[in-house]
């Protein structure tokens, strides 16, 4: 990981950061295996450079962004809480830029209602993408409603802890939507497409009853198999004093984002 320069971002968070070693060794990135340590152990052969991201679909000026160009965007420090749907959380100092800054460069059409994202497929570099038992179908796909995508909290992250993203964290570019469960934060993005219909999302395709399109962090709506009322802070407390904290609506970002969902039934639209 190479050092990255960034300016302080607009959202301050006064919480203890999750240790870097935890952020970079306790990961869900099924393209590299389903165990938490797999992504760090199995991503050595992955090549995050050269890289480019195609932005296409309902846009006036479709464009393929090279990584150099992406790293020249105005990068900000964005420390966010990250809440995994499995019931654990971290506080991560990301480096990135608002997704809206990228979208502004391609002239989205008024008819575009959603943004669809796609992860790279490279079975030869990503061992979870080949073999007999594959956890999901590839490519991993995710999506956001246009207003969610344009929200100033939504960023494309290119680094963490002052350096470019390690492979296991979604190098070289990934999505971070801090009020949604972590799996919405699609990693190693190669394609962004503006579309009219709600896009397919990988976990919903895998199990629609358990993982919805919205997947906003919500302590009042349990996962069918476990409670979402509390979360375990990774890297704190250790073996004999697991640190459990209450999960907050919209992961603590309700003031900024609750208005996006006015009038929506968040139990039905989980």
């Amino acid at each position, binding site marked *: 990981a190479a050092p990255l320069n960034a300016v302080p971002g607009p959202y301050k968070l006064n919480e203890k950061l999750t240790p870097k070693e935890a952020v970079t060794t*306790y990961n869900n990135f099924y393209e590299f295996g389903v165990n*938490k340590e797999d992504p760090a152990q199995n991503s050595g052969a992955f090549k995050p450079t050269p890289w480019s991201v195609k932005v296409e679909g309902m846009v006036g000026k479709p464009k393929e962004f090279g990584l150099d160009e992406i790293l020249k965007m105005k990068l900000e420090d964005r420390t966010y809480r990250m809440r995994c749907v499995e019931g654990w959380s971290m506080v991560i100092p990301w480096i990135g830029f608002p997704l809206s800054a990228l979208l502004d460069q391609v002239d989205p059409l008024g008819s575009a209602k959603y943004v669809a994202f796609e992860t790279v497929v490279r079975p030869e570099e990503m061992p979870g993408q080949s073999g007999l*038992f594959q956890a999901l179908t590839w490519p991993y796909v995710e999506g956001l409603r246009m207003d969610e995508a344009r929200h100033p909290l939504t960023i494309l992250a290119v680094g963490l802890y002052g350096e470019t993203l390690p492979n296991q964290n979604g190098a070289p570019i990934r999505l971070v939507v801090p009020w949604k469960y972590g799996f919405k934060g699609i990693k190693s993005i190669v394609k962004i497409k503006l579309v009219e219909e709600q896009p397919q999302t990988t976990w919903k395709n895998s199990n629609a009853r358990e993982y919805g399109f919205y997947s906003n962090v919500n302590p009042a709506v349990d996962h069918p*198999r476990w409670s979402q009322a509390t979360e*375990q802070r*990774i890297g704190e407390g250790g*073996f*004999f004093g697991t640190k459990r904290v209450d999960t907050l609506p919209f992961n603590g970002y309700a003031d900024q984002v609750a208005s996006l969902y006015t009038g929506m039934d968040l139990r039905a639209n989980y």
Partner: protein
Amino acid sequence: MAPLSAAIPALPRRYHALSIWVLYIVGLCPAAWYFYQAATGGLGFNPVKTFEHLLGIWALRLIIATLAITPLRDLFGINWMRYRRALGLLAFYYVLMHFSVYLLLDLQLNFAAVGGDIAKRPYITIGFAALLFLIPLAVTSNNWSIRKMGQGWIRLHKLIYLIALGGAIHYVLAVKSVTAGPFVHIALIGLLLFYRAIRRPLLNWKRGRRQPARAAR
């Protein structure tokens, strides 16, 4: 075909009791080792969950081993019946440790959360039921109970089939997707339970084949 049992040297009878105690000690080693690792930072950044899961997986492995004793004897002539009680009791200890870690270290005695989990979440309901069903089996795992209960003991201990099935379902429902590891454990349990369904006709068929041969001699 020479029976597989011929390939395994027989353990002299005087070592039988000792070997069972060795099995208890060896069987508890994974738990001790993982506990040491968890307590000293060797199990990663979520040591409680990892320890909890490892105990559960070893419980399933011990149940698989317990269920394998009968087919090993029927099909391969390997008589390890003397180890079955130890394997079954070890499985019970692992299930108990698995639950204790969940209760003490994971949910930290938050009984409301534990109760909610057991009542509302099928995989935890099933896992907890399997733990409860194991208790009468563990309590009656001694020679005195076998003598006292007679046929009732055999009927009671058939509960292990239900427990094994429950354990497998608990595992499938607990993982986000069934990959190679879970699949192997579940397939073995399925195979061993399936064997019980075909055991009687299979043994009758084998006996039937042997008898005419003997008569011709």
